[in-house]
């Protein structure tokens, strides 16, 4: 099992979270305590044990590919923070060439 300490600011970046200094310090301490606790699993012999992703069988569910009613566009846009011309507006994604 891992022995390195968690780099909270780096992992927060991977999670798309921008933390302030105080949050980083608090989470550093708390997450290291939690990871210290979960280290106990390293002592278990799990050789040959299948992992359980779901506690009950999960099957692919297929249906006929038929057009049908969905949630109306207006209902979807009603929750969007910003919209224009029937679409959700976001900051520019592609930089100028």
């Amino acid at each position: 099992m891992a022995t390195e300490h968690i780099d909270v600011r780096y992992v927060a970046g991977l999670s798309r979270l921008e933390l302030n200094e105080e949050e980083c310090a608090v989470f550093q301490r708390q997450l290291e305590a939690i990871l210290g606790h979960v280290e106990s699993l390293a002592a278990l012999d799990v050789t040959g044990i299948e992992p359980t992703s779901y506690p009950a069988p999960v099957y692919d569910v297929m249906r006929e590919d038929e057009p049908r009613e969905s949630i109306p566009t207006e209902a979807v846009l009603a929750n969007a923070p910003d919209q224009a011309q029937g679409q959700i507006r976001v900051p520019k994604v592609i930089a100028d060439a």
Partner: protein
Amino acid sequence: MSLASASISSLRKQLLAGDITAVEIVDALAASVSARNEEIGAYLSTNLDDARAQAAAADLSKPLGGIPIALKDNINVLGQPCTCGSKFLSAGYTSPYDAHVTGLLRDAGAVLYGRTNLDEFAMGSATENSALMVTRNPRDTTRIPGGSSGGSAAAVAADLAIAALGSDTGGSIRQPASHCGIVGLKPSYGRVSRYGLVAFASSLDQIGPMTKSVEDAALLLQAIAGPDHRDSTCLNVPVPDYSADLHKGVAGMKLGIPKEYFGEGIDPEVRARVEEAVKRLEAAGAEIVEISLPHTEHAVATYYIIAPAEASSNLSRFDGIRYGQRAAAPKDLLDLYQRSREEGFGPEVKRRIILGTYVLSSGYYDAYYTRAQKVRTLIRRDFEDAFQKMDAILTPVAPAPARKLGENSGDPLHEYLSDIFTLAPNLAGLCAISVPAGTVASDTGTQLPVGLQILAPHLAESTLLRVAKAAEI
């Protein structure tokens, strides 16, 4: 007795006899809510006018005809807010659709009345992590109601709701039910559709009833159980009649007492109440057998790897683009994501997202996540072995009665350890219930409820309810 304090089954009898009307029930609830919700903080929102209209139009011939049901505010109801107890969604999100269970409640004739408070995105054991308000335990308002379905539990316990739905990922129905002195049932994984429940940890979450009696839990489960093509984890298997065997008793049943659940760390008075409940079941004809679930001690560590991992993935959809919080004047798209999430999420949610991202990240995935999933198999096998010989298993719900508000703040590991008795059934997909088992006197003289937890095999809710009915005080 006020109509607001009655059970579903008693109100149904009175409605069908024509002694009361559904609108009178809503009015009685409205009076209770206006008298006590400010003190308790059970509801985030209510829709009284709409509820009156639903009640006036209710078809009493349906199974829940005219019965008001409160819903935890992470279950979508068309046209109503769904805040998940978070700032991220509280600034104006309105559900554009019904969750599957919401539709089933409508089909059953229920009146949908009020959205109950919860720990943000259902993460917590106290309802103190709600970003919107505090919920207090109606039995002692200086204490937590438990979490994360604390609003639902408090509403039912304080007679602000006839019954409610909660969601349970690691004990979030059973633990607040235990702390508030009501019945809380977590159905087997796959028994109830999760479509329209805002996902926390998809392999663990289940929606379930929180009620004043075991009989009511059976009635409410009956209404929400069954297949749903929109949730591929919802099982396409028949739903039995949960009320049919309810009164058959426990004579001849074998009930297991796992020694690992009665060791150190449990409040002696809590243990005494649970042992008294076990004795009552023995007197009712059950054979009580000591058993062992050897991997119990690893349940907390396993859960706090798997649940945050799934949460970090599920909560990535909250990015400020399609709904909810969006940071002002972002300099680019990444800045919009990062600041929207920083502003919208509270500390517990951020902590779990970071933890989940870490255990899924390159280099740590096998060491943490894969290993936890293998230990999950060992925990599941412990139960499978036990249920070869046992009909059900009896344990405490929580190691101690409801703690004071604010007592564990800043110490998440200590708080996580309080879930030790409820996590394993979620990891194994079992059905489980909390039934009131008496009270413990607090240092200030209030009586704090204690719950008995009953566990049964996957899809054995009928057995679970039968044992629960026999254990009910």
